[in-house]
């Protein structure tokens, strides 16, 4: 079980955190891994806090519970930092990835003394630049792949191109923008502590 990576996503309903967790599972599956991708279902409403999970492993995954001690946490909306204890159980050997424009000094008081690595990305800027709209999940997906290093950037980009071609078969005009969002995000994500 030591080879298993556990990831917990925090987002708001409508931002695509669940979709991002499923896309990550897909991408890892396509590189030969065993995967789980599942959201925690509740009374879903636009804007309400939601949680989704990923397990990625080189051996079959048998455990069926939520994730309490993740290796990585992804925060898709930084307004959650004030209301959701996102660093609960997060391993200090791991990292937290936050979609924000805040600085390390501004973030630290919001992370309940978390001593591990903190990565940030301005997913709004990336999304606006690449897609002309605010869809934070695509850049966050690329950013967590880079931070967690579960596959190479090239493997990831190749796989996502295939997924987008399948997913957007009826509107191919959005494929280029989504690929650009991934590529930009891989460059923009940065370690801030």
């Amino acid at each position: 079980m030591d080879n298993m990576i556990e990831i917990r996503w925090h987002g708001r309903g409508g931002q695509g955190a669940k979709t991002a967790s499923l896309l990550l599972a897909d991408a890892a599956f396509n590189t030969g891994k065993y995967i789980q991708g599942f959201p925690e279902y509740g009374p879903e409403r636009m804007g309400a806090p939601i949680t989704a999970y990923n397990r990625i492993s080189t051996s079959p995954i048998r455990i069926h519970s939520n994730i309490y001690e993740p290796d990585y946490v992804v925060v898709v909306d930084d307004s959650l930092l004030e209301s959701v204890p996102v660093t609960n159980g997060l391993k200090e050997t791991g990292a937290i990835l936050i979609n924000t424009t805040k600085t390390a000094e501004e973030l630290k008081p919001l992370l309940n003394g978390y001593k591990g690595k903190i990565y940030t990305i301005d997913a709004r800027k990336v999304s606006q630049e690449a897609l002309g709209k605010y869809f934070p999940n695509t850049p966050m997906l690329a950013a967590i792949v880079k931070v967690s290093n579960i596959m190479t950037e090239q493997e990831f980009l190749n796989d996502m191109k295939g997924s987008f071609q399948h997913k957007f078969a009826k509107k191919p005009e959005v494929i280029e923008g989504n690929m650009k969002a991934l590529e930009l995000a891989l460059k923009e994500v940065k370690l801030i502590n």
Partner: protein
Amino acid sequence: MSIRERLSGNEASAIAMKQINPDVVAAFPITPSTEIPQYFSTFVSNGKVDTEFIAVESEHSAMSACIGAEAAGARAMTATSSNGLALMWEMIYIASSCRLPIVMPLVNRTLSGPLNIHNDHSDAMGIRDAGWIMLFSENNQEAYDNLIMAHRIAEHKEVCLPLAVCQDGFITSHSIENIELIEDEKAKEFIGTYHPEHSLLNAKEPIAVGPMDLQAYYFEHKYQQAEAMRNAKKVILEVAKDFEKLTGRKYGLLEEYKLADAEIAIVCMNSTAGTTKDVVDSLREQGIKAGLLKLRVFRPFPAEEIAKALQNVKAVAVLDKAESLNACGGPLFTDVTSGMYVNHVKVPTVNYIYGLGGRDTTAKDILGVYTDLQEIVKTGKVNNPYRYFGLKRGEK
């Protein structure tokens, strides 16, 4: 070569139904099984199956339509959860007493009330005495495999009983996981076609289905149902043997995990078994002889096999994801202990009610159960056999 895929439990069930290609599917949506008929209806629209899909107005009608179709000689399926099953209840008994081998994925969700959409086994336990064969599935793979085997069991001429394939709502129904699918042609060949011995559309042999049956023969007909359920055990094993030849995946009435030399054992069903296997492995690494007995087949109840599997352990915990509210243990516990008693196996056995209404079941919870069992072995005492875990107590 099998097909490596990643699917949710609901997707896997819908794909099994596509390979079964039943004559009739009648369904009404209810969380968390809604996706099964939803995905299946797209196969109908896209011409991937030639099923007559009946979008009925309630689950009572869904089961009624399946009964009508099966009585006519067709292969009929539906899928449901929770209160959808509750609304079918009257017809559930009619299906089994008419000896109609309807197959139904049952995505387990707690039965209201209070109103709750999440997983436990209270829906399934409501039909445990209804004359349905009931298979439980640890994950998406088992939900799929059980469905592929289902018709061969249900339609066998010594059985002729309806069959439900259970899996845990959300926990496996909505989790994307790896799975090995059987190629369409091989799956279809394994499942075979349905040739009922008697049916309403057989003009050469006019029959009545579901007539009044009073003192003269009602009892004998119930006995025949009971005999059919007893016969099902053998048929389930025969079908499993063929399935193993096809896929390499081995199924029995139950699965013993590191039980042969175990001193402490947990008995449970569905997704909790996977979590328990991880805990067993970690305990074994510390030299603690822990084991698991997972029930795949809950009806017919493999009492003798369970007793035999548990005869050498020193303490047993039976986990029930349903509260019988009878002040003396959950449904799995009472069945397991009765099976042990009748087969002269006397091992200290305790019951835990857990996971009701979707309360998450963690590895830590399971570890706590094994720790309690070690204490029972050490002291030789069972203070209270009726226990809970994951329950908030002493909090205002």
